[in-house]
């Protein structure tokens, strides 16, 4: 049900903002998105799970923000959740605040173009990653390293950026989506669910 709701809202509410982005040649999606052949919701979902850098923030009781980095992410169609994979041991302060019901913000950035979206929501669940998710994280690292190398960022520089030790999966329902590609429209909401 959540999945249907997400997709429906994506279809209805995302399109104008995304089309505007496309028309400004600052599309957030992948090649297939640029080609305009994929469904919108698929494009957003595929962007989250594509070769993007992932940064995330939670906050504590005093509203101080805590930063973590993602090691892969995907949209769970069935549950309607965004699933963020991250190292609990590498980012202990971030994970201390990553509890059910807590707010979370995650930004996905395509490194070659700086195209970025930020997704915000409320955490549904934080659990140790499954073996399938650990494999996904390993694949993510394998894919990101050469991609970043091609952009001149070496393995040493990324040595603690991509961490999959004590990998955990943070599930949250995406309540807000924002364009974050640098430029005048950065921070512009793509939609708001009331």
């Amino acid at each position, binding site marked *: 049900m959540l999945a249907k709701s997400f997709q429906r809202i994506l279809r209805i509410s995302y399109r104008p903002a995304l089309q505007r982005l496309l028309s400004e040649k600052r599309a957030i999606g992948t090649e297939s998105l640029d080609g305009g052949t994929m469904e919108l919701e698929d494009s957003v979902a595929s962007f989250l799970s594509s070769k993007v850098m992932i*940064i995330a923030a939670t906050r504590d009781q005093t509203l101080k*923000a805590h930063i973590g980095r993602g090691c892969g992410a995907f949209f769970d169609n069935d549950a309607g959740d965004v699933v963020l994979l991250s*190292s609990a041991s590498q980012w202990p*302060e971030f994970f201390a605040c990553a509890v059910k019901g807590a707010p979370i*913000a*995650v930004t996905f950035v395509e490194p070659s173009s700086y195209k970025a979206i930020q997704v915000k929501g409320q955490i549904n669940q934080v659990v140790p990653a499954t073996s399938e998710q650990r494999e996904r994280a390993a694949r993510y690292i394998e894919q990101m390293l050469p991609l970043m190398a091609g952009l001149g960022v070496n393995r040493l520089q990324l040595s603690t950026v991509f961490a999959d030790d004590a990998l955990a999966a943070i599930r949250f329902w995406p309540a807000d989506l924002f364009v974050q590609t640098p430029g005048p429209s950065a921070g512009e909401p793509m939609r708001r669910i009331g």
Partner: protein
Amino acid sequence: MTNVPLETLRDSFEGIMPSVIATTDPAGMPNISYLSHVQYVDSSHVVLSNQFFSKTAANVKASGRATLVVIDGRTGLQHVLDLTFERSMREGEIFERISAHLDVMAGLQGKSDMLKLKAVDIYKVESCRCVEPVAPLQTAPQAPAVSRNLLGEAAATTRLFSEMTDAETLLDRSLELLEQKFGVLHSMILLTNETGSKLSTVASRGYPHFGFGAEVAFGDGIVGIAAQRRLTIRIADMRRGQRYVSAVAEAGRPPQEEIAMPVIDQPQSQIALPLIANGRLAGVLFAESTESFAFSHDDEAAFEILAAQIAAGLAIFELADASSDYSDQHPALDGSIHQGKGFRLRFFPHDGGVFIDNDYVIRGVPGRLLFHFVQAYLQTGRTEFSNREIRRDRSLNLPEFKDNLETRLILLRRRLEERGGPVRLERPERGQIRLRIEGMPRLVIE
């Protein structure tokens, strides 16, 4: 409280790896984004560029707090900084430095239409903690136990400068000493032209050709921006610019008839330092390397000492030359006037431009000087001239003596030498110029 001293994190503030900033809105929703520029201010402050992140700005305005993660581009180590907002600045040295750096990087990335920097924000660093690597993909090699004594090297270099007695030696030896003392393999000195709109290469070292006379416009690339803003600009790692081009080549991309700027293939780090003495910009000292991180903060400080010495030296030599009473030589005649193949020397009075046949030679004051020498030669057969008479000759439209006649003569002589004839200049002794011409020149005033 700062746990890790910010001084040990200087390499994390190079803009090599983007930093991350997180804030929280009054309702408790976090916000996270990348940040283009974080710079060290002092042991308890950093400055952030405030360009695009309006939500971050709104949250900081409401809460006064932000959390930052920075990465050391040399080691891959990350640190978390808890920040408290102190103030915004729209002018001043820190603002100008960040603005100039962003403009150079925007030019490199072909994004010169990026929004200009509006303000920078100063934050107090409440705490700085290392993100301990739990399973690093790679470990950085151990840093050398003994670091270079750059202050000592700068002192030794300036002592050598003090022994020099003429501008030409200073120009060449300073680049030579940059290599010997600091390992700088590619460097050049460019001089400001008389209108303050361009810089011309007068000395270079470590390039396939010297490129004497090659020009960069003020405001173009790292050299032009360093000149225009009178600020040192250092790019530690050009890979982030994604385009392996020389900033100088980019800036000085010459029309066909102009002189090619000396370049190296894949510069990874560059530094440009304004040469300022008596409040006047004389030019720019530029250095580059094929290695990333070739120039550190400490190198920058050492080079700034040298740049000040070079600028002061040039000014002193110029003053000494202008006030000297080297006697005018009796004009010598040259019997070779009719020898060799003839050529056409075209002069453009509006900018002092000189072409030999169809090839661009030089413009500005050096161009006017060249025209003057050749014209006098054709009229009287003279080949000997003196700095003194040039300074007196109002027809040359020379600016006042302070405008570096001596260095412009050096530039002209070198340009003609690199060009390889048919006109050359020699300096038989201090304050004297000897014209060497092969063939019969025909003057054309355009």
